[in-house]
């Protein structure tokens, strides 16, 4: 059965942007975060609520060739802590603590000396975790950096929310089959038109809507 929300999702799937574009946005966010903090690596982990796992959605620096798409249980490690408590955490001298180091290694694939991690908060939920690993050793952490980390995390949370919406729209579209797909195709096609052609396309859709009594 097809209902109104599914149709809207189909239209959304046609126009809001592809998964690739949102992944690229996440990649750009971690790239800027790494650069601003002068860090060795930065990553965005996304919570897969069904499997209760954290998945690497964006990685730059150490581990960027191997970590993307890898998963680990959401209830472990530093990222798990940050996600569960929805609280940013900054830790240095990690290598002095073997247990801690192994936790971080589990999250990242390598053992950093220090890390900053902030939850990706959207509305009432925590969608994932932004991590920045190994800031320059000679600098002490400052509150200004905490503020900056929070700003990046907010930006990443918005991008992740859009990514999740795009995925949900795609999923609904897949479940809806051909009926919904044609709506998405129409939306995509009209959205891509320019100038007179776009106006003509919209006129055509309006005629169609009128004919259908919509």
């Amino acid at each position: 059965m097809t209902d109104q929300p599914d149709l809207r999702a189909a239209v959304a799937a046609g126009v809001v942007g592809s998964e690739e574009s949102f992944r690229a946005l996440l990649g750009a966010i971690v790239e800027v975060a790494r650069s601003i903090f002068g860090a060795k690596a930065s990553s965005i982990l996304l919570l897969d609520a069904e499997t209760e796992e954290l998945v690497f959605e964006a990685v730059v620096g150490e581990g960027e060739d191997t970590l993307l798409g890898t998963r680990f249980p959401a209830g472990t490690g530093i990222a798990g802590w940050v996600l569960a408590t929805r609280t940013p955490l900054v830790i240095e001298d990690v290598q002095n603590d073997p247990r801690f180091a192994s936790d971080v290694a589990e999250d990242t694939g390598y053992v950093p000396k220090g890390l900053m991690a902030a939850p990706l908060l959207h509305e009432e939920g925590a969608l994932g975790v932004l991590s920045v690993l190994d800031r320059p050793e000679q600098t002490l952490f400052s509150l200004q950096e905490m503020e900056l980390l929070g700003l990046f995390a907010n930006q990443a949370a918005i991008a992740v929310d859009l990514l999740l919406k795009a995925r949900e729209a795609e999923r609904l579209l897949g479940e809806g089959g051909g009926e919904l797909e044609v709506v998405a195709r129409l939306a995509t096609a009209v959205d891509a038109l320019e100038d007179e052609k776009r106006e003509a396309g919209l006129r055509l859709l309006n005629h169609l809507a009128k004919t259908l009594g919509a």
Partner: protein
Amino acid sequence: MQDVTAHSWDAGKVALPAWSLPKDAVDRIALPTHWPERVTREWALDGATGKGVRVCILDSGVEATHPLVGGLESAVVISMDDDDEVIADEDTEGDVSGHGTACAGIVRRLAPEASISSVRVLGSNFRGSGAVLLGGLRYAIDQGFDVINMSLSTTKKPFASVLHELADSAYFRRTVLVASAHNMPVESYPWRFSSVISVGSHEEVDPLAFFYNPSPPVEFFGRGVNVEVPWAGGRTLNVSGNSFATPHLSSICALILSKHPELTPFQLKSVLYLTANNVGGGT
């Protein structure tokens, strides 16, 4: 039904709540504390060790054997049964992350003779639900702790009203709830409630330096940057965040209460205000 003659009672015989104050009963509310002409840092906490004050760390558990923690009065882990009743079992697991141990270590360092208890509201897989957090707070308030350190918050709005009631209940039962403000600009609780002492971070290195914020909701700032703390596994780490500023204020509360145990949360907050570095406590 209890026979209470509310309009002709004798203040010395019937302990009714002070909902009104007849003119011949003013002595009944005489303050046990002798307030000095000027409340100073020296009067408030000089020489205090935290002795006699019970501090609760509501967190991920505490590693009692860590040398920088130095033992606990009690440790429980909270869960909820099928009827949503709070279950507090003895916690044999210790700290599931290290965060609670860090908070306890800060309290031990600043208020060495305070009694510290752990109420764990996070499972070993970190699946600490809002319900368990509320259950743990309810349990801690029922235990009558003097100070509850809450370096945690929830972003779940449905829990806000219950948390608000619990925070007010603690306030009137003389339990001081010291709650970490969120480091990020999000709505979370209970630190936003006026009945708690909410804490953000400053960058000073003096662990007893604290500041009053005239622009709430964050009311006080404590040391929260580059703090050396004990962590699970007998280790130490250098950490930053409001999570760690909060036990600094909890410790200061414990010090003040050990010297002036009669203080109500309102009075304690007033003392904090008057002795804050940017008010009257600066050196």
